[in-house]
């Protein structure tokens, strides 16, 4: 049974296992340093569809099907899907999973959705409400640009703090069992807002949320950064990562050499024009599903904190003068079902 530990953390007594994972990416992602982690690459940004929105839905469908195929399962073997994306009404999840017959819990946490979906699915599993669940998120550069910024062909300049929305999707299949890795604990984030209004500096908007969630986790579990092999944030980029380290150092936690960011891992900043790094639900999802989960399964990593961060930005309220509120959810993943820094 999932039990509460401290004020913010949920501890899994019988940690759910991630039995398979898959990720799908586009041309830019293939050309990045993690190009070989993808199960499927499509160099056509339309993914053979008529619109970019349909392309993103297709990515989610492909990712879920691939994760099921790797586990040797069909859609009817999954009790529930936990999915979301950046687009209004979470259309990529809705239309991507339409026709699969899997009950859907639609989630929105902006770029934090992958961690949010893992957290919700893990609690459902621990409660015995489901025996298998699939978590899936996606983002597409073109759909995000259209919804949040300018038309694709519009000639504008981005500041160095801007981030590049990844065209990618990741899916993870969770179940009870003994297959590594395991979701050992989750910390649900609080909404943080330190008044950043610049939509071209999302890393700065999200860093306080990431710092708060990590601090909550360390306090709740009486652990420290040195207890973990790696702390992977999702999509803070270079600017946000610098701020996160700075904020936590002031609170007595040194993340130096132990923290990295999915947005910085996915692209090559010297050769790819991504400014501060990657972003989007698909960025953290694909790095987790294609890179981190296999490393945990191979025991190359043993205890990591995966923390996807989301800027809960609405262009409407930002235009009305509101600042960008953010959230970060943390998942403690381990290659072992018991033991490690957080043994209860």
């Amino acid at each position: 049974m999932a039990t509460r530990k401290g004020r913010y953390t949920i501890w899994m007594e019988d940690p759910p296992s991630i039995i398979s994972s898959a990720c799908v990416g586009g041309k830019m992602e293939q050309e990045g340093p993690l190009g070989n982690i993808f199960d499927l690459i499509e160099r056509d940004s339309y993914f053979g569809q008529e619109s970019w929105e349909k392309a993103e839905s297709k990515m989610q469908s492909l990712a879920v099907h691939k994760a099921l195929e790797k586990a040797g399962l069909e859609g009817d073997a999954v009790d529930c899907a936990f999915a979301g994306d950046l687009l209004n009404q979470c259309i990529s999840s809705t239309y991507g999973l339409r026709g699969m017959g899997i009950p859907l819990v639609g989630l929105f946490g902006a770029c934090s959705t992958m961690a949010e979906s893992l957290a919700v699915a893990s609690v459902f599993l621990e409660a015995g409400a489901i025996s298998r669940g699939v978590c899936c998120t996606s983002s597409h550069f073109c759909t995000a640009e259209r919804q949040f910024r300018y038309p694709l062909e519009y000639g504008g300049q981005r500041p160095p703090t801007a981030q590049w929305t990844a065209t990618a999707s990741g899916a993870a299949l969770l179940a009870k069992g003994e297959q590594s890795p395991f979701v050992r604990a989750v910390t649900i984030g609080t909404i943080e807002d330190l008044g950043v209004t610049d939509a071209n500096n999302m890393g700065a908007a999200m860093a306080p949320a990431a710092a708060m969630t990590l601090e909550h986790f360390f306090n709740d579990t009486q652990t420290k950064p040195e207890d973990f092999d790696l702390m992977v944030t999702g999509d803070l980029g270079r600017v946000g990562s610098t701020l996160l380290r700075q904020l936590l150092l002031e609170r007595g936690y040194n993340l130096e050499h132990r923290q990295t960011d999915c947005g910085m891992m996915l692209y090559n900043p010297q050769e790819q024009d991504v400014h501060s790094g990657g972003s989007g639900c698909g960025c953290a999802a694909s790095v987790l599903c294609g890179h981190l989960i296999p490393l945990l399964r191979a025991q190359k990593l043993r205890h990591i904190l995966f923390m996807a961060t989301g800027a809960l930005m609405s262009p409407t309220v930002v235009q009305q003068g509101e600042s960008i509120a953010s959230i970060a959810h943390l998942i403690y993943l381990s290659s072992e079902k018991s033991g490690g820094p957080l043994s209860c």
Partner: protein
Amino acid sequence: MELTPQTYSQLVKEASPPSPHAKNISMAFFIGGGICVLGQAFIYLYMGLGVPKETASGMASITLVLLAVILTGLNTYDRIAKVAGAGTLVPITGFANSMSAAALDFKSEGFILGLGAKMFIIAGPVIVYGISASILYGFVYWLLGQL
């Protein structure tokens, strides 16, 4: 240190690399200037073909608009603009790009509610405030003429 929006804003400022202003301004100057030179060349070309000067100016503007729209459609204008910044934004080519980019982007939502309605999403404010400013200017001009 107590973290307030003000103190955090200072931290953000220190952590955020500034835009390369010297590079951006010089690229804007040279590419924007280049577009103007090209416009002037078209004026001379049309005048050389026997077109009166005023008509030649109009034709040069139309030619620049046409070139900008073609380059937008070929996925090239935004690549030039990434380097040129205000150099491609301020001349008439920037206006042409903002309308054709929106038209291309929103055609997936249909010709009426997509292309037709959203075509002015970027250029709209320029038209609204451009016309408003010219009315105001005209009014002031008329008032001064009455003195």
